[in-house]
């Protein structure tokens, strides 16, 4: 018990725990829509693209780097939506090229000019250090916004995720809902980037949602479960990263992977069948999250 409580005496650890838990919950919640829409490659692309925006923004106005990265992220999110809508062929490739180029630019700028914000490793794999009050407020605000959006637009979101054509016929403004979802997604990635890390955010969008899918056939329950699993991974992962002395994002993702394996063992073929064909891209992410 003491070993569990001991780190709580540090204010930075309390902050870290709060941010990790909330980040896990937030990514778990949005991840359901991302995975069911087969869009996990967009989460992956966005986090990398935001990293580029972040590096560019901090060159010009260090104190506003979060704002710069946010605008960059929203712009990429909308650009990706347009590319996907306009051209069915090669959308994946176009997104890959744009976002990885943005990421490479970020890495180059980091290497050349260093960072006035988080270090390179911390930005890539997440860190408990340097979590400011502003970031906590931002994360809480984004979480509230996301929660409100999903609560108020629950049915329109569900309908347009399941069957956009019929949803449009039934009076759902599908394009608007999708654009709003992309903006919320980029804000969520931005708000969780510091603890989870650029390379690992996409994995946390996918893992809780896939675990939840293996456990239930109901959409409502999948949302609740995915949020809970995400929060638990954040909490436990943050503790473990403190003791192991490794970047927080790595432990959070590893806890998620461990839960995935445990649930797989528990549900067996049934869970596999439920999650089969969920999202072709999510399998790559699960197979090798850190290598991307």
């Amino acid at each position, binding site marked *: 018990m003491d070993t569990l409580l001991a780190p709580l005496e540090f204010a930075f650890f309390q902050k870290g725990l709060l941010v990790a838990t909330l980040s896990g919950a937030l990514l778990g919640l949005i991840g359901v829509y991302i995975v*069911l829409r087969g869009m996990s490659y967009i989460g992956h692309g966005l986090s990398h693209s935001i990293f580029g925006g972040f590096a560019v923004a901090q060159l010009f106005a260090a104190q506003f780097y979060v704002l710069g990265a946010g605008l960059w992220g929203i712009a990429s999110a909308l650009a990706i939506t347009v590319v996907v809508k306009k051209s069915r062929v090669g959308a994946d490739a176009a997104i890959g090229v744009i976002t990885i180029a943005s990421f490479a630019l970020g890495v180059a700028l980091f290497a050349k000019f260093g960072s006035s914000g988080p270090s390179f490793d911390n930005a890539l794999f997440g860190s408990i250090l340097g979590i400011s009050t502003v970031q906590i407020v931002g994360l809480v605000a984004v979480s509230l916004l996301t929660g409100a959006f999903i609560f108020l637009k629950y*049915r329109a979101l569900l309908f347009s995720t*399941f*069957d956009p*054509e019929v949803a449009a016929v039934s009076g759902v403004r599908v394009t608007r809902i999708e654009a709003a979802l992309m903006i919320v997604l980029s804000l969520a990635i931005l708000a969780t980037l510091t603890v989870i890390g650029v390379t690992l955010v996409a994995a946390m969008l996918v893992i809780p949602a896939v675990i939840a899918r293996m456990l239930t056939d109901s*959409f*409502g329950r999948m949302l609740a479960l995915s949020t809970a699993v995400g929060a638990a991974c954040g909490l436990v992962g943050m503790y473990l990263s403190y003791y192991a002395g490794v970047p927080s994002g790595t432990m959070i993702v590893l806890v998620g992977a461990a839960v995935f394996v445990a649930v797989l063992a528990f549900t067996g073929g049934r869970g596999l069948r439920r999650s*089969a064909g969920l999202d072709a891209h999510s399998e790559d992410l699960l197979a090798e999250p850190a290598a991307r």
Partner: protein
Amino acid sequence: MTGTGVGPELVRLDGVSARYDQHVVLSDVSFHVHEDQFTGIVGPSGAGKTTLLRLLLDTMRPVAGTVWRQPGVRMSYVPQLETVNWNFPVTVMECVLMPRTRGRRLPWASRGEKAEVHAVLERLGIGGLAGRHIRQLSGGQQQRMFLARALLRQPQLLLMDEPTSGVDVSTRHDVLHLLADLHEEGVAIVLTTHDLNGMAAHLPHLVCVNGRIVADGAPADVITPAVLERTFGARMEVLEHLGMRVVVDESPASMLTRGQA
């Protein structure tokens, strides 16, 4: 049952053409849907039947021609089962409730909404399945679940893509009776079908499509060897049985026996 198109118009296509990318799928199609419509669209695979429904529904814009819709017309769509994502985690209750998005609605179903869903499922003969995952239904039950979802909007015009593909004879009869009742209650219906004998021959009005409208009229006028050959590009015989048209195609089996004789 009239169904050949009297009463005010709901949707009107005039000289409409449609294409995907560079590939023209329908050309110069004129099709007026009236309040009293009960029409089956028949044609071979790839003829453009689903595309025609998409044009009526406004999920696809034509490249030529004009489309007019009665302002505020309520349309419901029952998709072809082959196009549904069966891995999606929704229960029958969640699926049927989807069209209820208007106004301030909570994520979960209200007691009144649940009662409404149970009532429509009951009417369609699949009461008691509300808690199941959509994949845990038979083909006929899945079809009726989507019909329930469509009916929840109380549509003026019901469009159905292959509502009887892959269902058994008695389910097909049930669906036909149900549609006849709905039509009696004043719902206009347009559906597509591959099933000439089981479905098309029982409808009051047919449209034959193959990239364009080949013929339209009552089954007695349309189900003829000449029209069918122009529509399907295959020779078929038409017999008369108890006042109904019965189509017999040259099946491989009969070709084989003839070859042996």
